[in-house]
């Protein structure tokens, strides 16, 4: 039995369609992350799941029950907001207890359950404080505590870490991951931060333009993006894209001065003649080393700039009028700006996308 089931969800605001037919099944206990740029519909989808937004058509089922038109409180969900949304006039204890109070739970039980949530989230010392006396990380923990105490079937997180600084974000990410391991509830998490998506998710759902672009494990999306959007969105720095054409022999020719022919193996281009090649920065090499294979991608260029991140460096290589290629190189590189270099990649590391932006899969060796 799947914990959450979305069938053909559509949502329009006036004439603007923000969700254009979404089908999704989420297993019980699964951690699913919705990623996408702003305006992709991921947050709207979560709000629909929460019952804070009506659907235009389609059905929402949670735990096997159709809850499409049920009130938020009747869906067995709890939600953590980006803005924390704590009640400023209530203490931390009462913030966490609010749902139990509304449900007229006996005071003794309220005490036990709030204390238990506070223990899990290390909030015990802070129960008497007001939200304004807490730091950002503590406020977010209270918001999570408010969700835990209800013992929900599904946890919904709407960009919960976006307002925290970088160090705290890593820490809270770890805590959310631990929380999922401990209580094992189904979690749906919305973020535009792909690091959060990659590290937290059992499965990632990539949204763009109100549609699901791809569903899969983090590594599936990274290694086999099904279209240009996912290829460009997952991975940082972004995947490099090169325009290419299919020549008569069925091999692809890179559309730059060199007009090199590269061998992409046996792929079905489906009649497309204009292709896009995608290569990740770490798959590109400076120099010909290791890619002396026949039909490898090889481009002559010049280093425009170098970014040293400490453990690794990135070279931005210009070639003709095209956008610079980002190449991951060794941190101890002796290369400098202005060096003439050859950038190369092995055929197996090249992703190919057809005219419509869909991935053209290679026969795996």
């Amino acid at each position, binding site marked *: 039995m799947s914990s959450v089931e979305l069938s053909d969800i559509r949502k329009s605001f006036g004439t603007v369609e923000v969700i254009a037919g979404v089908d999704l099944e989420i297993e019980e206990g699964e951690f699913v992350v919705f990623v996408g740029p702003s305006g992709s519909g991921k947050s709207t989808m979560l709000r629909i799941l929460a*019952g804070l937004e009506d659907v235009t058509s389609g059905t929402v089922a949670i735990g096997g029950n159709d809850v499409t038109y049920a009130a938020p409180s009747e869906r067995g969900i709890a939600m953590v907001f980006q803005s924390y949304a704590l009640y400023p006039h209530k203490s931390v204890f009462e913030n966490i207890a609010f749902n139990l109070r509304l449900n007229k739970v006996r005071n003794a039980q309220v005490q036990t359950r709030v204390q238990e949530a506070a223990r899990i989230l290390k909030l015990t010392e802070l129960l008497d404080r007001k939200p304004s006396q807490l730091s950002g990380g503590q406020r977010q923990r209270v918001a999570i505590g408010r969700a835990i105490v209800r013992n929900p079937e599904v946890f919904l997180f709407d960009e919960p870490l976006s307002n925290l600084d970088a160090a705290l974000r890593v820490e809270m990410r770890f805590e959310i991951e631990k929380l999922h391991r401990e209580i094992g509830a189904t979690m749906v998490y919305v973020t535009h931060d792909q690091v959060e998506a990659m590290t937290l998710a059992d499965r990632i759902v990539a949204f763009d333009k109100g549609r699901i672009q791809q569903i899969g494990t983090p590594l599936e999306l990274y290694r086999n993006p099904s279209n240009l959007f996912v290829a460009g969105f997952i991975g940082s720095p972004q995947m490099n894209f090169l325009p290419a054409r299919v020549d008569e022999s069925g091999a692809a020719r890179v559309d730059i001065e060199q007009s090199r022919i590269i061998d992409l193996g046996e792929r079905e281009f489906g009649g497309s003649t204009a292709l896009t090649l995608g290569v990740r920065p770490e798959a590109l090499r400076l120099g010909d080393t290791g890619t002396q294979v026949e039909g490898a991608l090889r481009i002559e260029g010049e280093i425009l700039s170098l970014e040293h991140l400490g453990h690794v460096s990135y070279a931005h290589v210009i070639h003709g009028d095209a956008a610079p290629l980002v190449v991951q190189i060794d941190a101890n590189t002796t290369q400098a700006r202005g060096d003439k270099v050859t950038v190369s990649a092995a055929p197996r590391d090249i992703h190919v996308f057809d005219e419509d932006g869909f991935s053209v899969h290679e026969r795996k060796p």
Partner: protein
Amino acid sequence: MNAGRRHLPWNARFGWAAVWLCLIFAFVFYATPMVWLLLAAFRDEPMLFSSGPFSLGSIEMFRTTWHNLTTYNDFQIGRWALNSAIYTIGGVCLSLIAVLPAGFVLATYDFPFRKPILVLTLVAMITPNTVVALPIFLQMQAFGLNNSYLGMIIATAFFPFGVYLAYIYYATSLPGGLIDSALIDGASRFQVFTRVALPLSKPLIALVAFFSFLANWSNYFLAFVLLTKDELYSLPIGLAVLVSSSGALGNDVASDIPINKPEAIVAALLVIAPVLLLFLISQKYVRSGTLSGAEKG
């Protein structure tokens, strides 16, 4: 400081000059009459005519004036002050009960005819009170509520400006996330208002109460239309009637009623005093900051 200002560029000096000019203007035209009124309360009638406009009188003179005013007609003025308090406080309470939920609903929910209702509120807000006085009079007469406390309270509680204030407050100061959060926590729409929005409305309540108090306390025309029995008069009506019947402000020979110019002046202060007092009390609550900690920042 002075040395520093001497080196200010000409446009900054012009700015300073403009600020001082505005302040002097405001003082001369707004503060001076108040100071005069305050000082005049301590002078008797002959002194009002003979001495300079800002000369000091004595406590004795004030006591005599106060005595004349309060003992006249069995402390009738006390009765009017009490009436004014009943009308005003009743009106403030009733308007708060109506205004806060109305503004909340208009600001946070989308329902049919929301926009037209908002526009109507604005129209009602800019309509002068005097225009609706006659319809209100007819309405009250139909219900038999003329010349009654209840009628006067209901009439003064009509406060569209308050609805608009509440609407603006909830639309701008209440984070949408709080409402969503409360709905998920299982609060009904009504509970969202009573348990989340209302406790965060102290500045709004202070503001609405203050303006409502001000409007009701100094409301002359509506009371003039609705009240005909002198034992039901509010302070502004009572004093107007008193002053005109005694001829206190005229230049004719004083009547035998002991209400003359000094008494009229003290009576005017009596009307102003509660408003000043309330302003001092409520401004503390009008300061923002109640919502800090709800969201980021």
